[in-house]
């Protein structure tokens, strides 16, 4: 099944692209998808522990299952001013 993945901020720089289409096996969760993204874009490993994932524009836990046509966003900590 096809899942569309978006990369923002430093994740976009590290992936070298703003978006990618991933082919997910049935039953995959966000953690699995993230690992496969890290294999395809190894520089993303630098963001381990500093990343939140959104599933269809809502923040979601790593255990959330993905489905055909879902949109997953790699969201590094949001910028803030003081």
């Amino acid at each position, binding site marked *: 099944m096809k899942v569309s993945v978006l990369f*923002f*901020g430093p994740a976009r*720089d590290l992936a070298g692209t703003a978006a990618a289409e991933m082919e997910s096996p049935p039953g995959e969760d966000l953690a699995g998808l993230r690992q496969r993204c890290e294999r395809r874009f190894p520089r993303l490993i630098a963001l381990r522990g500093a990343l*939140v994932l*959104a599933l269809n524009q809502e*923040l979601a836990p790593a255990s959330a299952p993905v489905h055909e046509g879902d949109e997953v*966003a790699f969201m590094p900590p949001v910028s803030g001013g003081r």
Partner: protein
Amino acid sequence: MAPMPSAREREEKDHFRLTREPISASQLARELCVPQAGAVVVFEGVVRNHSSGRETLYLEYEAYQPMAQRRMEEIGGEVRAKFAIERLGIIHRLGRLDIGEVSVVIVVTAPHRAAAFAACQYAIDRLKQTVPIWKKEYFTDGAVWAESEAVRGAEL
């Protein structure tokens, strides 16, 4: 005397937007002024010329646009639940911004100033904490993505 607008009518006149064009705070304030409002608070976030002791050349902002739009509207709902206001407007700019340019404007109109000030402070704090917008700072000797207050509260 004209009837008082309902809560729903008030909400529909709130204003949340992402834009690549320069933002006019005074125009937004004019749009949100109503006869019931005795206070107008305007916050402008401006690109400053330094960050962490380095000289900034310019900034670039990018957003996860549909989610950012929705989060701004949700902040509007939170503000309305907490403060007695008339209208709220939040506009955030995206793309390249030079020193002195306005990156974000928040306008609150309310019958009284205390609620307007408090609502404005709340809205900018929540925006920084929860709206997916990223800022890249360009210096004379390189560029970095701004570290942040983060999605810390949302760490999953």
